[in-house]
Structures are given as C-alpha cells and as structure tokens.
C-alpha cells in the first residue's frame, strides 16, 4: 500500500496532504505580512497626497508625521477629500481613478480652494507602456501641472509644443504616448467638476 504510488487512494491522499501543507505555509506568510503590505499601500497614498499638495518631505517616516499633523481627511459623497494649509493657502486633494491606455491609472489631484488652479498631481499606480506612457510618473511631466490654471474646467494636454505659461491651461503631452496623455486630460476633466461640487464652488 505504502509504495503503490499509482493507486487512486494514494493519489488522492497525497494530493490532499501536499496541497494542504503548502497552503497552510502560504496563508501563514500572508497573514504575517498583511500588516506590512497595508502599511506600504498607505505609505504610497500618503506620499502621493503630499507630492500633489507640494509639501516637501525627506523620508518615509517624516512623510507619515507630516501627513498626520498637517493633512485632514473627510469623507464627502463617498469621496475622500484631503485638505491642508500650504504656504498660508488652503489646498484640497482627491484620489482619482481612471482608465489609461492599458489599464487603470490612480493617483491624487490637488487644487486650490476656488478650483481655479491645479496645485499638483501625483500617481499611485499605473500600467502604461514603460518608457512611453509610463513617463507620466517622471517629475518633469508632473511638475507641468504645478499651479497650472484650469481653463473651461480642464487642463489641455497638448500634443503640440505649448508656451511655458502657467495661465493658459495647457501642458505638453509625452511624445509617443498621445493616448496616455489624453487619458490624463480626460481624468482631470472628470475630477474637476467633482471637486467643484464637493467644495461648493462654480
């Protein structure tokens, strides 16, 4: 019986025991690290909120401290609205979610109190083409949005060269990643009305 490796009973028992043993180890490991994983995800979000609001920090620990002391979070109409005072001005931020070229793009969009300018934008997760659309995570792209005026409820991500003006509501798109650039434009255009209604401005 013990060495009749091809009997049905042995096969079933063997499969069961092996699957069970591996599963127990894996679920144990998962439970052990779930706290850490949750912390990491929170950290990604905290860093994105601070980046979008333009609050500087030097380390992860400092980021958490600043977030806890300066940023307040409230839930309005099922959206999490973050607010903080930066250089004497009230700044609001919202988590966004939208579709890019290949998949979901999520991040944080920060605006000033009358939603006339974007304070900043940062991304938490994206799966755009590495080296092309993926470059939305590079600072030159994100910095273009810093203090950019919102014109007609949106910021145009233009595929032609735009002047370096903060008042025209236009930023440069990424060469070779027009669809990703346009997705960002669309996401911003979707979330500005939401921010306006949350903050009660027109």
């Amino acid at each position: 019986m013990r060495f009749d490796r091809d009997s049905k009973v042995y096969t079933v028992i063997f499969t069961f025991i092996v699957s069970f043993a591996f599963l127990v180890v894996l679920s144990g490991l998962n439970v052990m690290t779930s706290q850490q994983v949750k912390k990491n995800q929170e950290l990604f979000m905290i860093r994105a909120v601070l980046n979008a609001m333009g609050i500087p920090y030097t380390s992860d620990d400092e980021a958490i401290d600043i977030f806890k002391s300066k940023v307040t979070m409230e839930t309005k109409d099922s959206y999490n609205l973050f607010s903080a005072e930066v250089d004497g001005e009230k700044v609001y931020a919202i988590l966004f979610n939208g579709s890019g070229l290949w998949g979901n793009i999520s991040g944080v969009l920060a605006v000033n109190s009358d939603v006339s300018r974007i304070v900043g934008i940062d991304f938490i997760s994206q799966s755009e083409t590495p080296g092309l659309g993926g470059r939305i995570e590079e600072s030159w792209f994100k910095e273009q949005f810093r203090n950019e005026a919102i014109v007609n409820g949106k910021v145009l991500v233009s595929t032609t060269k735009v002047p370096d003006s903060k008042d025209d509501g236009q930023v440069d798109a990424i060469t070779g990643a027009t669809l990703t650039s346009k997705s960002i434009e669309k996401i911003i255009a979707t979330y500005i009305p939401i921010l306006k209604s949350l903050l009660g401005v027109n």
Partner: protein
Amino acid sequence: MSDFKKILKNNFWLENPVIVQILGICSTLAVTNNLRNTLIMTIGVTLVTALSNFTISAMRNLIPRKVRMITQVLVISFYVIMVDIVLRAYAPDVSKALGPYVGLIITNCIIMGRAEAFAQGNKPLISFWDGFTAGLGYMFVLVVVAFFRELLGFGTVLGFQVLPNSFPKWTIMVMPPSAFFVLASFIWIVRGMQIKKDVNQPTGGEKK
C-alpha cells in the same frame, strides 16, 4: 564533485536555457528594458528554480506518476507566491515596478523544464545546484540584454546617466520589439562562438 562542475558549465554555457534551449523567452522580452528590474526578476527566478528543484527532488519518490506535473506546478507556484508576498511586504517599490511579472514566473518554462528533466530523477542537493545554475544562465542572458536596452534606450545603466544628454535615445530599445533584435543578435554571437569551437575540436577521425 565534477558532476557539479559539469552541470554549471552545461547550464551556464553549453546548454544555456535561453540561448540554446530557447526557453523562458516571454519574460526575457518583457522585463529587460531596465537593468534593476531585470536583476530582481532573475534573482527571483533563480531562487524559485533552485528551491522548487530541491523540493521536487526531495519528494520525488512519493509523487504518484499521474499527478506528477500538477505537483510540480504546485511546488513552483508555492515558491513564486512566496517571492511575491516577500517583495510586496519588504520591497514595495520593486513590487510595483515589476507588476504582474512576478506572478508570471510560474509560467517560466525553465523552472518546469528543470523540474521535469532533472529534479525528477536526481538527489535533492544536486537538483538544487542544477536549478540554481540554470537560473544563473538565465540571469546572464537577461542582464546582457537589459544592459544594452537600457543603455541605448535611456542612456543609463542601473539608473545612472552614462551617455551624454546629446545622445539620441533609441525609443525602440525600451519597446518590446527591440528585445527580439538584441536577443537574436546575442544568440547569433554566442552560438557562433560555440559552433566554431565544436568544428575546431579534433574528433579522432570521426566525421561530425
């Protein structure tokens, strides 16, 4: 001891899983546009191949023949999920950069190939070594491909700028098709060297 040496030489050079056996090509194409990600990915593959080989070999006398392959996949995915969990918890930035590729280690043919071809019929320790060296052979090829792709595509090596800014970046190098060009050229060069050596070896009158 010479067995270990022979396995190393075979897996790393003579029967390199990527260059000679043309296994694991998907991941070779997918993760090689950035040297740092490539290194982490290949370390993951090496560990998984070595450990799953060890485990499968240790229980090879207990595995019923009918469910042999299922058991191998189970062991492999066990280690891959472990790598995924550890990365997610302790190297979140890396885990984010690699995205779904970590989970896809499971489908890397090299691991399954070594399990079926070697671990199934050999003792645990030497199976571990076999998996480990096969992983190293894979790592060697991917690192070379990634080095050239990152250098020409971004002008950097491991994120450090090495080429002057005036160097026109080859955007194609960061896109998937370039992996075909770089890998194919690399296989061409290495196979050329290997075959030349075969031809030059005196074979004692025997026709090759």
